């Protein structure tokens, strides 16, 4: 019960992104779109998986409601992170959105094959980026029903 209340109040979003500039822009765009969002940042794939597994084990209220995942990351790349999330019974129900500069058809197809919930390209223009984050926030954190924090019994 408590977890649900926390989730409703403050959507938890995990951003997996190694570029500090993109992290800053994403933080600012979410702050504008929905100030209640708590954005956690992992700057490589290993850190992302460690964070997710720690939250899953502890069953904490900080388990992300949504994951934004870059593809090109140090240590463990985004495709591997995505595969690991979707192979893990405790994590696979967290919607995972690819957010990358790559528009390569091979990356898009591979993303969907690995069960990405959707694939978004980062626009270069700042206002377009802000609009994109606003629409992510509107669709995923207002309209979409997300699975609750607790693991399925």
């Amino acid at each position, binding site marked *: 019960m408590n977890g649900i209340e926390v989730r409703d109040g403050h959507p938890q979003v995990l951003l997996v992104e190694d570029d500090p500039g993109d992290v800053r822009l994403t933080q600012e765009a979410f702050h504008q779109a929905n100030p209640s969002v708590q954005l956690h940042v992992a700057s490589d794939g290993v850190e992302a998986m460690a964070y997710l597994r720690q939250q899953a084990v502890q069953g904490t209220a900080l388990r992300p409601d949504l994951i934004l995942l870059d593809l090109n990351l140090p240590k463990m790349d985004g495709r591997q992170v995505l595969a690991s999330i*979707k192979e893990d019974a405790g994590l*696979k*129900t*967290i*919607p995972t959105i690819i957010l990358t500069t790559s*528009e390569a*058809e091979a990356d*898009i*197809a591979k993303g*969907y*094959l690995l*069960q990405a*919930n*959707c*694939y*978004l*390209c980062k626009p270069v223009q700042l206002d377009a980026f802000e609009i*994109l984050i606003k*629409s*992510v926030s*509107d*669709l*995923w954190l207002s*309209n*979409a*029903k*997300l*699975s*609750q924090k607790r693991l*399925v019994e």
Partner: protein
Amino acid sequence: MPIEVLLVEDSPGDVRLTQEAFRDANKAIHLHVAADGVEAMAFLRREGIHAQAPRPELILLDLNLPKMDGREVLAHIKEDSNLKTIPTVILTTSEAEVDIVKSYQLQANCYLTKPVQLDAFEALVKSINDFWLTKVKLPQQRQNG
């Protein structure tokens, strides 16, 4: 370029409302309708009268359907190597946690509930168009040669 969308929905009233809302949101959308799960799979696999059916870029899937229910349709889509990359969005009245979790486990790309109020429903269809058919990069049409 028309955007092909498959709506799997058995309620004629909901079909009509969805058609009208999409027409308002985006004229380029071709909305195809399957009224039960068996027809949906026949459309997607181009069987029988659906031999010429286009491959949809997005599927909107109700959960409670005659003949074959939405959970089964979803499982079939996501087990099929040719169909699994088509984003499949659950659009249902059910807010039951068990349905939400089960759908994400079965690899639904997103789970949305139908609002009862008409203007809220229109706003939802507009946001589906804005996000899924405008912002999202969809996998390219794959024609099996």
